[in-house]
C-alpha cells in the first residue's frame, strides 16, 4: 500500500505540497548523484574533489573541467539550455548544489540576469519536476549589504538591502529570493540557502582579489569589523547542508571577526588610506578606463559593517569553521 503512494504523488509540477510526514521517499538515499552547477569554478572544483569520495557527482558548467577526478561525470552545458533536463532524465539526482552564479562585474546586466536568474529558474523547474529531495543554494552575506545602520550581527531574518546602494548585485538577491520562494512552494524538497561571509582562498571574488593587491587601499577614518571564511570551511558548510533533514536559511561565518586593518597587518601588506570622496572618484575613473575590477559602490564594504550571526548554522547544521583566521587570510596568496 505504501509503495503505491509515491506513484500518486510524483506528478509533474506538483502544485499541492505533500503533507510533511506523508512525503514519500522517491528513491532510497545514497543512490542518486549530487549535481553541482558551476563545478569548474574554484569553489566548485574544491567541492567536487571533496564530495566525489563519498557520493557520485555530476558536474555542470559551460567551461571544461580538464583535471576532474575520474569518477566524476562532467557535462559541459549552459544551465539555460534544454540539455540540462537530459541530465536530470538520464540519472537519478539526489541533490542539487547550485554554485553556478556569475559575478563578473564587467559583464552586462542583461547577461547577469539571464544567467543568474533565468538559468536558476530553469534549474528550479527541473528540481521540482524530478522531485529532487535536496537543493542547496550558495547565496552570500553580501545580500544584506553594508549599511551604516546595520546591526553588528545580522540574523537570517534581516532584510536583503544589498541592492540599495549597489544595483549590480540585485540579481544575486533575486536568486536568494527565488530560492526562498521555492522553499515554501515545494516543501517536498529540502531547500537550504547558505549565506557565507566573504570567501577567501584561491577563489577569484572581490574580497580575495582585494586582499591580493600589493598595496591595499583603505578608507581614511574607516576600519570596519569584517568576517571572512576560508573556501575549505564553505565546502564543509555545503557538506553539512547536504545532510538529510536539514533545511532553511543559514548564515555562514568564519573564524572570529577582526578589524580590516588587522587583517591587512596579518597579511603583512602595506596599506594606503585614502579619503572616501577621493577614493570613490578615483575608483570611478579607473573603472571607466577598465583599470580596475572593483566597481565604486563596493567601497561600502570597507566602510560599513556587514557581519552575520551564524549561531543558527552552528546549532542546527552543526557547522564549525575550522581554518584559523591567519590561515584563512593568507590563503589568498596560495596558488590553486
Amino acid at each position, binding site marked *: 500500500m505504501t509503495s503505491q503512494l509515491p506513484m500518486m504523488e510524483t506528478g509533474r509540477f506538483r502544485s499541492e505540497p505533500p503533507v510533511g510526514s506523508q512525503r514519500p521517499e522517491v528513491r532510497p538515499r545514497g543512490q542518486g548523484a549530487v549535481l553541482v552547477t558551476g563545478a569548474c569554478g574554484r569553489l566548485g572544483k574544491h567541492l567536487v574533489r571533496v564530495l566525489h569520495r563519498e557520493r557520485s557527482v555530476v558536474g555542470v558548467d559551460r567551461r571544461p573541467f580538464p583535471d576532474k577526478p575520474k569518477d566524476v561525470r562532467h557535462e559541459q552545458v549552459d544551465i539555460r539550455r534544454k540539455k540540462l533536463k537530459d541530465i536530470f532524465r538520464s540519472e537519478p539526482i539526489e541533490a542539487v548544489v547550485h554554485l553556478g552564479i556569475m559575478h563578473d562585474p564587467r559583464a552586462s546586466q542583461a547577461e547577469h540576469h539571464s544567467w543568474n536568474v533565468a538559468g536558476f529558474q530553469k534549474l528550479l523547474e527541473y528540481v521540482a519536476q524530478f522531485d529532487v529531495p535536496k537543493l542547496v543554494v550558495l547565496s552570500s552575506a553580501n545580500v544584506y549589504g553594508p549599511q551604516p545602520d546595520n546591526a553588528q550581527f545580522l540574523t537570517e531574518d534581516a532584510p536583503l538591502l544589498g541592492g540599495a546602494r549597489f544595483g549590480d548585485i540585485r540579481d544575486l538577491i533575486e536568486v536568494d529570493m527565488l530560492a526562498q520562494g521555492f522553499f515554501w512552494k515545494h516543501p517536498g524538497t529540502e531547500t537550504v540557502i547558505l549565506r557565507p561571509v566573504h570567501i577567501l582562498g584561491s577563489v577569484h571574488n572581490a574580497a580575495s582579489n582585494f586582499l591580493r*593587491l600589493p598595496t591595499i587601499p583603505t578608507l*581614511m577614518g574607516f576600519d570596519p569589523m569584517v568576517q571572512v571564511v576560508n573556501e575549505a570551511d564553505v565546502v564543509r558548510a555545503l557538506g553539512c547542508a547536504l545532510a538529510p533533514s536539514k533545511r532553511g536559511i543559514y548564515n555562514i561565518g568564519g573564524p572570529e*571577526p577582526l578589524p580590516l586593518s588587522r587583517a591587512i597587518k596579518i597579511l603583512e601588506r602595506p596599506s*594606503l588610506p585614502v579619503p572616501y570622496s577621493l577614493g570613490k572618484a578615483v575608483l570611478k575613473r*579607473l573603472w571607466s578606463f577598465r583599470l580596475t575590477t572593483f566597481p565604486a559602490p563596493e567601497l561600502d564594504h570597507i566602510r560599513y559593517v556587514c557581519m552575520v550571526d551564524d549561531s543558527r548554522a552552528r546549532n542546527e547544521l552543526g557547522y564549525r569553521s575550522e581554518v584559523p583566521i591567519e590561515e584563512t587570510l593568507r590563503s589568498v596568496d596560495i596558488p590553486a
Partner: protein
Amino acid sequence: MTETSRSLARIGGRLRFTAPFARRLLDTASTSVDEWLTTKLGEEFSARLSRVPLNLTKTGVDPFGMDPQWAKYALASIAFLHRHYFRTEVSGTENIPAGRVLLIANHSGQIPIDGALIGASLFMDVEPPRIMRAMVEKWTQTLPFVSLFFSRVGQVVGVPENAKHLLMNEEALLVFPEGVRGISKPFSKRYQLADFGLGFMRLAIETGTPIVPIAVIGGEEQYISVGNFDALAKLLHAPVVPILPQLLLPFGALPLPTRYRIAFGEPMRFGGDPDDDDAIIEEKVFLVRATVQSMLNRGLKTRKSIFF
C-alpha cells in the same frame, strides 16, 4: 588593474621607507603618555584595566570592535575629567549587579558628557571595574574617524538587535530614555525629566535585565541654554541647535567646571510580557522615571553649591 596596483605599490614602498621613523615617534609619544597617565591617575588605573572582564577574541578586539588599547586612552582622558575637572562625587556603586545591567539615567548638558562620566565612574569607582557600553546614533557611522573611534572604544550602533546582543553578553548598557529631548533642555527646565521612551523597558523584560536608575546632577549647569533655535536646526538637519550665550565668552566653548554628582539607585527588576500594550509597559516606565526624578530631587536638596 596591474598598472594601478603597481603605482599603489610604489606609493606603499615610499610609505614603508618613512614608516620606521614614524613608528619610533609614535612609540615615544605613547610611552610618555603612559607615564603621564600613571602620575595623574595613579598606578591603580592600569591595575583596574587589567581587572575589567572583557570578551576578547583571538585578534585582540571584542566582536563589536572594541580594542582595549584604544579604550585605555579614551578612558584615561575621561577619567582625568572625572577626577580633576568635574570632581565627580559618586554614590551607590554597590548597587551595580555583576552581570548584565541596564543603566537608566537622566540626560542633560547639551553634549553627552554625562554619559562619559557615568562610563568613567563605572570604571574608576565600581568594583569590579566595568567597561560601559552605550548606543550611538546611526548617522555617526557615516563619519570618518568618528565611526572608527566609537567602535574601538566600545560604543555600538543604536539598533535594538545590538542592545539585546550586548545584554546577552552580560555587558553594562547605558540608555538615556529621554533622548535628544533630555539633553537639549533649556535652563528653565533643568532637572525636570522629559518623557521616557518605552524601548528600554521592553528590552529589560525580554532579556531579564535589572535596571539601575541613575541621577546625574551637575550637567544642567555646564552649558546654560536659553532656548533652542528651531529654524536653524531644521536648516542644518540637526536635531537641535541650543542658544548658549556663554559661547561668546573667552573659553566659553568649554563646559563650566560644575561638580558632578552621580547616584546609582537600587536595581529594579520587572517581569511580564515584553510585547505588552504600550499602556502596561508605560506603567513600569513611570516607576523608573519617578525613581530617577525623586533621586534627582533628593540630590538637589542636599547640594550646597553648584561648583563645590
